[in-house]
C-alpha cells in the first residue's frame, strides 16, 4: 500500500531506511566503492536532471532529455572502476568532502518498497589555493526490500543550482549520493516510473516478479 504521508519517525521501516542512508554514507566516506555498488539493485536507475531557471508559471524547472547523470549499473560500475585506476587525475589527490544528510522522510510504496526523501549539503575542498565548493541537492530514493536487506533501486538527485559551481561531478555519486525532496518534476518522473514500461525509462522500472537484488561479488571493480 502506498502512503501519502511520511511514516512516523519511530516506525521500523523509517528507521531501517534512515540507517540505510547513513550506512551507505559510511561506506562512501571510507572510500569503499565496491561495497557501495553492492547496495545497488541490478536494475538501478540513477538520475540527476539539469535544473533550469523558468518562470513560475512555466510548469517545469528541469531540461527535457538531458541530465547530469542518467545511469544504469554498467555505467556506475565504470565510474567506480575509473576512480580505482592510477590515472583518474581529477580525484588524485582526492577532494576532501563531507556530506550532510538531513530531512529524511520515508513513504511506504507497493509491497515492502520504501520511497525515501532526504536533503544533502555537500562540501568539497581541493588543494590549498582553491575555494571550496558547496553543493545543495535533494534526493528521492526507492529502496527495495530483498533477502539481503534494503537495496537502492532508484535515485533522483534534484540539484539546487542551474549552473553548477564545482569543476565536475567526479565525486558526486561517491560522496554526494544521498538526499532529496521531490519537486513537481521529480514527482511526475516518479509516478511515470511506476508502470513496468513507462515512457522515458531506459529499462523496465521494476524487475520481473520473483527476481530480487542480491549481493554480487562480480560487481567489484
Amino acid at each position: 500500500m502506498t502512503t501519502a504521508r511520511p511514516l512516523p519517525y519511530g516506525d521500523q521501516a523509517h528507521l531501517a531506511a534512515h540507517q540505510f542512508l547513513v550506512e551507505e554514507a559510511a561506506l562512501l566516506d571510507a572510500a569503499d566503492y565496491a561495497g557501495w555498488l553492492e547496495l545497488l539493485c541490478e536494475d538501478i536507475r540513477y538520475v540527476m536532471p539539469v535544473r533550469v531557471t523558468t518562470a513560475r508559471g512555466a510548469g517545469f524547472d528541469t531540461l527535457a532529455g538531458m541530465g547530469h547523470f542518467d545511469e544504469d549499473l554498467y555505467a556506475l560500475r565504470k565510474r567506480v572502476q575509473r576512480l580505482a585506476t592510477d590515472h583518474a587525475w581529477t580525484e588524485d589527490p582526492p577532494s576532501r568532502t563531507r556530506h550532510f544528510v538531513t530531512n529524511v522522510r520515508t513513504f511506504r510504496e507497493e509491497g515492502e518498497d520504501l520511497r525515501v526523501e532526504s536533503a544533502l549539503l555537500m562540501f568539497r575542498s581541493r588543494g590549498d589555493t582553491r575555494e571550496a565548493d558547496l553543493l545543495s541537492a535533494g534526493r528521492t530514493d526507492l529502496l527495495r526490500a530483498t533477502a539481503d536487506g534494503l537495496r537502492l533501486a532508484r535515485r533522483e538527485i534534484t540539484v539546487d543550482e542551474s549552473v553548477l559551481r564545482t569543476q565536475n561531478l567526479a565525486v558526486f555519486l561517491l560522496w554526494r549520493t544521498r538526499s532529496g525532496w521531490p519537486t513537481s518534476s521529480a514527482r511526475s518522473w516518479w509516478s511515470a516510473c511506476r508502470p513496468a514500461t513507462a515512457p522515458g525509462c531506459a529499462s523496465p522500472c521494476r524487475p520481473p516478479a520473483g527476481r530480487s537484488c542480491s549481493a554480487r561479488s562480480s560487481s567489484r571493480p
Partner: protein
Amino acid sequence: MLDLASVVSDVRRGMIPAHVYADPEIFALERDRLFARSWVFLAHESEIPDPGDYVVRRVLADSFIVARDEAGAVRVMFNMCLHRGMQVCRAEMGNASHFRCPYHAWTYRNDGRLTGLPFHEEAYGGEDGFARAGQALLPAPSMGTHNGLIFISLDPGAPPLADYLGDFAFYLDFYTRQSPAGVELRGPQRWRVKANWKIGAENFAGDSYHTPHTHASVVDIGLFREPKASKRKEGALYQAGPGAGTTYKLPPGGDFADQLRYVGYPDAMIPGMAAIWSDRQRALVADSGFMVSAATLFPNLSFVHNWPQIDAARTVVPFISLRQWQPVSERETEVLSWFAVDAAAPEDFKRTSYKAYLMCFGTSGMFEQDDVENWVSITDMAAGSMARRLKLNSRMGLTSEGKPVKPPLAAFAGPGLAYQGFGEYGQRHWLGRWSDHLSGEAR
C-alpha cells in the same frame, strides 16, 4: 604592464607567455577586441522549435533573448529594457508571446517590438512625448545561422557568417548535418570552472597529444575498444578557415558504410549521411579514412565526436557534443555542453548515444573530469609572477626554423591543411586568430 606587441609576437612563433591564461589586461582586450567583433555561437534552432519558444544566452556579460517569433523567425534581442535597463527576461528558457519588464511593465512582443507602455498618454503625452512606434529591444548587431546553429556578432559590420565559416563549414556538417532532418540539441549542462576559457578551446582544436595520458583511465577501464595512445597518433589534425580539429584513422579497407558502422552508426542512419554529404565529405571517411573527433570553431565553440563501448556487450555507440567556453573572467569559465543527435535517428540510437555522451563528456563525463582538473591547475599557476617569465612551448610539429617537421598530408579529402601524427598545429592556428584580434589585425 602589458607589452601586447611582445605577447603577440611570442604567440605567433608558438611560445606562449604563460600569464595570458590568467591576465586581467589580456582578458579586457579579449572582451574589447575579440568578443566585440567575432561571430559567437548562442543557440541551435532545435532548442526553440515552436513560436514563442525562447532561450536566454550570453556573450560575456551581455544577455540576449533568442526567440522564435509568432511568424516562426528567429530573433536575437538584447535583454535590457529600453526604459530603465532592467533585464526583461529573467528565466533562461520557456515560451512567451511577450516579455514584460518587471519594473514599469514596458512590454515587448517576442519579435522585440515595444507594444505595451503603461499610461502612455498620461505619462508621456502619447506619441508626441514618446514615439512608441518603431521602438524595439536592441537586436543583435549581426545574426546568422548555419545548419540551425544561431550565431551573432556584436559588430554590425561583421562579414557574413558563411564567409566567416569558410572552409570549416565542410567539417561542421559531420557534427550538425547527418541527414536532411538536421541535428537536434539537448541541454545544455552548465557549470563553472576556475579555468581560463582559451585552454579548452585550444585543447579541442588539436591536442591529440594529451589523450594517451590525460585520458589513460578511460582506456584502463575498457570504455574504448582500442588503446588511445597508438590510435591517436595515426589521426590527422586539420586546420581550415576559423576552425581546427582532430580525427581518428579508420581501419583500412572499408567503404563509406563500413566505416560508419565501425564507429557504431546503425544502418538506418547511413543513407542519410550518404545523401547529404558531398562527394568530398564522403571521401574523407571512405578514401582518406579519417573520422572527425574533437574540433574548435574560433573563438569558443567546440565539438566532439567519439564512439565508446556503452554496455557489457561492448556495443560501440557514437555521440556528438557541442560545447561552449563562455568567459566569466580571466580565471573562470562557464562551460555549456550540449548533446547533439541527428533528428531523424532511430529512437533507440538517440537513447544509447545519449548514454554514450553522459559517460564521456559533460559535468559527469569520464573524459571531461580529467581535462578540467588540468585546466584549473594551469590557470592557477598562470596567475603569479613566475608565470610572466615562462613561455610555454607550443611548437610541436615545427622545426627550429619554423617549418613543419612533416609535410601536410597529400591524400586528405578535406579543405585546409592536415598533418598526420602529433603536433600543435591546431592550437597555433587558433592562437593565430587570437593574435589577429588582440593586435587589431583581424577583419
